[in-house]
């Protein structure tokens, strides 16, 4: 299980990273997905570009009601509270259930989103927030709504000459309600079905269903789900026409439980 030979580049600034990218090199962040793919020879890049030493790759900044999370911010940093307030508390709870601490120490939120495994936790959860992925290319930064970022199995809206620079999420009021359910048989496993529900006062509640072998399904107005969780979860999942009944049951139950979890917080 040794990788095919590859070259290694460590750019000192973003323009250099982008020019290496245009030459066809593969970005490397935490290596927690790319590393296994290299070892299994599922990925055989000629060169990897190590993004970890680029200025501002990791880190969190709050400005004008938005929280900008550097793509290189690790799952463990988020678990340990790098993001302030209610948003940070919600994301810390998600981060803690990703893989294992040794993997979370190096794996990054941006690497996970760019990898676009439909069963990955950030892929499932981030579209529930009305935020954007910030892509960086030769002509500067471009905002891609998170609901439109993952296009399919390991396919994203990033262009080949762009890197994911950051993720921008709206700061949440303390009253924001959140429910999240991830089905896996062993802690730290990839999800078999994930659902999450976010209800911010004064806005239509949002929900996401994920780990479906297709891009996450965003429900932009989940009011009916909060009003009648069980019936509405059944209706939504019936509409997906999933082939396996056990799968449909898992997805329906995840959505139902996520809605209940968001609901119960109100009491």
């Amino acid at each position: 299980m040794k990788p095919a030979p590859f070259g290694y580049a460590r750019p000192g600034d973003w323009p250099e990273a982008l020019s290496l990218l245009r030459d066809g090199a593969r970005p490397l962040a935490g290596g927690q997905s790319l590393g296994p793919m290299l070892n299994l020879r599922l990925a055989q890049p000629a060169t990897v570009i190590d993004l970890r030493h680029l200025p501002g790759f990791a880190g969190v900044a709050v400005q004008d009601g938005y929280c900008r999370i550097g793509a290189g911010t690790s799952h463990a940093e988020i678990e340990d509270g790098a993001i302030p307030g209610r948003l940070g508390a919600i994301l810390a709870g998600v981060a803690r259930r990703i893989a294992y601490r040794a993997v979370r120490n190096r794996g990054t939120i941006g690497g996970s989103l760019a990898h676009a495994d439909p069963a990955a936790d950030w892929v499932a959860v981030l579209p529930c927030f009305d935020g954007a992925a910030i892509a960086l290319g030769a002509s500067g930064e471009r905002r891609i709504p998170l609901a439109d970022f993952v296009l399919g199995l390991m396919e994203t809206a990033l262009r080949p000459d762009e890197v994911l620079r950051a993720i921008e999420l709206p700061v949440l009021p303390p009253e924001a309600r959140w429910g999240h359910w991830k089905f896996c048989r062993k802690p730290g496993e990839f999800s078999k079905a994930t659902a999450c529900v976010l209800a911010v006062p004064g806005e239509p509640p949002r929900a996401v269903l994920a780990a479906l072998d297709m891009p996450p399904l965003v429900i932009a107005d989940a009011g009916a789900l909060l009003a009648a969780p069980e019936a509405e979860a059944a209706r939504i999942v019936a509409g997906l026409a999933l082939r396996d009944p056990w799968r449909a049951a898992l997805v329906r139950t995840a959505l139902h439980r996520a809605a209940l979890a968001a609901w119960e917080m109100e009491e």
Partner: protein
Amino acid sequence: MSRMPIRMTVNGKAAELVAEPRTHLADLLRGALLLTGTHLGCEHGVCGACTVELDGIPARSCITHAGACDGAAVRSIEGFDADPVMAALREAFSAEHALQCGYCTPGMLITARDIILRLPDADEARVREELSGNLCRCTGYRGIVHAVLRVLAERRGTAP
């Protein structure tokens, strides 16, 4: 493919190596530095046998390749001889029968030490959750969980 110079601090000492960028850290430690305490199980991040401390925090050495390690500080199981938490864990692993073949043990110890320092109030459920990224084929985990709980209790000054 061309080789590159890699400078690391390994167990407190400077190491200057020349390696192919594709060589992973576990092979650098085992092959180039003859530090064979780091074990390899799955070589794709799942089993935890290869866990070392990389820049002060646990990491999988099988999926971190040489280039990314240039300039890093690495601590493998051989680097914890004088560490008091590891000394307590060694005692507890022995008392609680937390190993049989010992293959998983270096990774278990490095994970266990991180649990003790990061989560001093962890209960049994949390210890089991935190150990879930380290696979053991022999012990059934009970002894390992008890060993970690024993050291946590010792440090809190309570009986296990």
